[in-house]
Structures are given as structure tokens and as C-alpha cells.
């Protein structure tokens, strides 16, 4: 079980959340190259270890939050 610390609701089961993925900076569509845009849309770091993620608390406060998760141990902590 993964417990995610929601700043509004406290620790809740990950089943209450929707995964938002790694926050990726959006390039300016007017100046971005095709490669940059493709990287923004599809490429993720996918690290084995601590990574920063966005989650949406769909069954709770309905707010987005940012946490750090260890992709090896599923340990979650506040960024």
C-alpha cells in the first residue's frame, strides 16, 4: 500500500489519487523544435530512486499536489 501525504486531507491511500506523472516544463510552442515538443509530450526520466511527481486527489480534496516518491521502495515524502 502506498500512502500519499495530502496537505489538505492527511495521509491517504494511493487508490484515492490519480497519478499525474513527472512535472515537465512546457516549452514555448511558438519556438520549440519538433524534438523538444516530442520530449515534452512523451519522454520521461523514469529514474530508479527518488523522483518528483504530481498526484490528483480525486476522491478527497480534488486538488493537485506534488510529492517525492522512491520508485524502488514506493516510499513517499513531501518535497
Amino acid at each position: 500500500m502506498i500512502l500519499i501525504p495530502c496537505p489538505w486531507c492527511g495521509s491517504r491511500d494511493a487508490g484515492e489519487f490519480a497519478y499525474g506523472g513527472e512535472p515537465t516544463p512546457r516549452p514555448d510552442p511558438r519556438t520549440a523544435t519538433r524534438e523538444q515538443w516530442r520530449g515534452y509530450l512523451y519522454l520521461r526520466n523514469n529514474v530508479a530512486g527518488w523522483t518528483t511527481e504530481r498526484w490528483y486527489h480525486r476522491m478527497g480534496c480534488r486538488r493537485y499536489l506534488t510529492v517525492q516518491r522512491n520508485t524502488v521502495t514506493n516510499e513517499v515524502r513531501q518535497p
Partner: protein
Amino acid sequence: MAETGVVARSPIAPAAPEIILAGWAVSARRSGAALTVTDCTPLTKVAIKAAPVGATAERLEVPFGRVSRQTWTLGDRDCSVMVVGSGPGEWLVLGPPGSQVSLIHQLSALAGDGDLVAVVDLSHGRALVRLTGSWAAEVLAKETAMDLGDSVCPDGAAFRSAVAGLAADVIRDDRDGTRSYLVGCERSSGQYLFDSLLESGAEFGIEVDGFVPPDI
């Protein structure tokens, strides 16, 4: 020619016998069981969204996660309403059946100047179930992972979490010292929630009790 009128129907099929009360088809069944479940969908449900901190939030006087029972003048009579801090910057106001128009007027007048406020009538868009009895927490604990102990969820507390796999608002609202919870979810999931609670409460002798207005 027989007189006809509009009858509102809950998504939860009323247990026989069925009667019409306050314009809603409800169950007339009365139960004296120690643990009961009641379809309270006929209650008026109005949602209000505003900034979590601001003039509207101050006027509502209810923080996120808490419930306040207040007396409001709706139309020409004083009515008991329940204001629920259901989310950050989100409140649910429960009133007697058929009080939508008055409640919306009251809430619109309550909105602070300059606040961006949304007031939406959810009366026919949500199902609401009341679970009452000393075993109510044990039954609900079978459906949700939340800690329902008095230290975390005392009388007058509210939270939104997964109940029977549904996103549901849970309000602890004890009645005469007996544990009682109001559980609300999307209308289309109402019958499923009701049946899940009945199934979980079977080992505790749960029975269906009919809705009696205003019941708030």
C-alpha cells in the same frame, strides 16, 4: 380526470410500502432496529465554491472538515440547515426537501463582494444515505479505510474519501447520542452505495428505515 403532479424519485428504490412525502417517493417503512439505514436523498443539497480564505468563507463560518448546524430563514419559516466544509473552498449545505430556491438565494446573498463564488443545486444529482446505530462505525469501517475513531472523526466532522470504492462525502452527525453518519455520493452510484451498506450491516442486523421530512 385524475390530478397529476411531479414526483421526484431517488436513485435508491424505496423499500415497500412507498408513499409521497414533500414531493418525493420515499419508503414508509419504520424500523426500531438498533442499526438502520435511511435514504435521505430528498434533502436539499446545494454546493458552494469560493476561495478557502475570504469573505464568503468567513460568513459561512465552517472550516474544511467540520459541520455546523444552523437555523436559517427559508421563505417565511425558520429551518434547520447543515453547513458542511466538504473540501478546501467547498461547502455543501443540506436543507429540508424542496428548499432549493430559498437556499440558493440565501447563499447568493451570503457571497462576499469581489469573491468568485459558484452556487449549484445538487439535490437531484447526489444520493444521500444516513447510517444510524451504535454499530454504524463498524459497518462504515468495512467500506472505507478512514479512521472513524472519536479522536480522528468526532461528532461534527466531515471528510471526503473512498467509501465502497466511490468518492463519497461522509458527515458524522450523531442523533441523540447515537452514532450516525450521512454518506453522499454521485446519484448514479446511490443504489450501489445503499446496497453495500446493507450488505456490510447484515451481520449487525441492519434494517431499512423510511425517510421522514425534514430529517436534518
